[in-house]
């Protein structure tokens, strides 16, 4: 390698390392902060302290931790399963059974991809209140189940699904829904894994819509309750950071469990 190439290589490593440091530092900061007193967090103490259990105790005394995690888990898991089911069926349907009319419908649907949520949130709220389901998990989950983005993603990924598999299954006499369930689904594992990460993250972190539609403390999600703690006049950062560590764990775990399939799944969708 020439000297110039080595220098260039060095610069690439340096920049990537800075990026990696900037990306990871807040996580380090969060974990360290969770072990420190609020006053130390605010003034930038960057070493592990001995307050972890005290902070945990304050957190559990201040908010109903099991309850809000239960709420978030139910919403995120149900929301993810239903979104994947409904949207992958549609993505598969659009790709596998083509007709001129459905192609037009698909193109029209993509136009709606750019409709911001803000444009529909007020009517949605009024709809939920006239259906008397404000403050329920159903009200949180229902609007997101049919996701244009995920339908589009599955249609793109389905293009890579080998048509010989489908033909073979037809020859064997499988019905279309059986082909979807027993052939397509297992083959597209990594596509589903990538979609799971994206949808689960979106559901777990969803903020604006739950903020509007959930209005009693016992139904609110982790995101809502912990973010409310930060707007206190004198926020207890030690306690809040313990809460944020807990709130980040589910998405982190899902990500690390599915990371390999995630990259493969994305690969399939942009081919």
């Amino acid at each position, binding site marked *: 390698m020439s000297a110039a190439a080595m220098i260039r290589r060095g610069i690439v490593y340096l920049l990537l390392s800075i990026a990696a440091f900037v990306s990871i530092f807040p996580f380090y900061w969060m974990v360290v902060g969770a072990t420190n007193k609020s006053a130390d967090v605010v003034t930038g103490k960057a070493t592990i302290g001995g307050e972890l259990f005290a902070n945990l105790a304050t957190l559990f005394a201040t908010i109903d931790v099991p309850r809000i995690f239960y709420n978030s888990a139910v919403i995120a898991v149900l929301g993810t399963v239903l979104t994947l089911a409904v949207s992958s069926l549609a993505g598969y349907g659009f790709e596998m059974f083509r007709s001129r009319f459905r192609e037009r419908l698909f193109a029209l649907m993509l136009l709606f991809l750019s409709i911001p949520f803000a444009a529909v949130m007020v*009517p949605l709220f009024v709809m939920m209140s006239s259906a008397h389901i404000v403050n329920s998990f159903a009200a949180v989950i229902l609007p997101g189940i049919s996701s244009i983005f995920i339908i589009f993603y599955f249609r793109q990924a389905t293009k890579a699904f080998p048509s010989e598999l489908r033909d073979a299954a037809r020859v064997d006499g499988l019905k279309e829904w059986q082909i979807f369930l027993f052939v397509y689904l297992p083959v597209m594992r990594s596509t589903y894994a990538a979609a799971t990460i994206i949808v689960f993250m979106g559901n777990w972190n969803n903020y604006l819509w739950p903020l509007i539609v959930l209005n009693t403390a016992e139904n609110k999600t982790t995101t809502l309750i912990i973010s409310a703690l930060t707007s206190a006049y004198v926020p207890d950062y030690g306690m809040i950071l313990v809460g944020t560590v807990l709130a980040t764990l589910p998405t982190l775990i899902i990500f690390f469990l599915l990371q390999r399939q995630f990259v493969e799944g994305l690969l399939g969708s*942009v081919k």
Partner: protein
Amino acid sequence: MAQAKLARSEQINGWAFIAPAMVLLGIFLIYPIIWSLWMSFQVGKGMNFSFGGFANIVRLTKDPVFLRALGNTCIFFVVQVPIMIVLALLFAAALNDASLRFRGFYRTAIFLPCVTSLIAYSTLFKSMFAQDGVVNKAMLFLHMTATPIPWLQDPFWAKVLIILAITWRWTGYNMVFYLAALQNIDRSIYEAARIDGVPAWARFTQITIPLLKPVILFTTIISTIGTLQLFDEVNNITVGGPSDSTLTLSLYIYNLTFRFMPSFGYSATVSWSIVVIVAILSFLQFLIARDRKPAA
């Protein structure tokens, strides 16, 4: 006969597979959109409203808070989206080099921010960027600034902080899309270019970017929509302040509907302004991407 039967079964299956999604979209997207379009021509407070014609649109052009929110949103979009897309592209191009060591580590590290929970990251940014927080301390220590920067108190720095926060969170997300797309590009193209003596930067601008154009377009549109809908970050980090300097359109709609005396009609008009902007921008981005095609 068999042919016709097959065609019919194709039709039935085609509709059956997409029916649940289409019905749900009809109820939870199409119907509310039409409703909100109708609402945007209504005036009045709470549930008492009457037809107001273009009154709301006239009000829009005279509403200083709306114009402020519109301006802020545009600044966020114009500054943040290009920075993020360029960074994501550069990282992806660097990480696509098979001879690079620790690729897996770098990729995971840079992607990690978008896995954090929203509250975690807004709380972290709020505390790290406090007046005497860790960022100011580090900058003072490195002599990058003489006095602590009032990140949360100054209208200009508050905007910078929001831009930093969004960029931190979403760059890795966009990068992964580019990385995935890059894997599909035949490596021999790069080898041939290298042998022909094409420098690294030219390989990036002449090969990587043109080949990634569809993905770049896709991520740019998604990021544009995301930035124009900005709500979570501003509501959690700066609450739109100081003095409305980080107020966004989505936050203003939320305030109009759920914080102030509800005026559904006017907030619907404001939300339709976002629809119009997104439509124009997506169309422009699409045109730009299409125009350059013959050259590439």
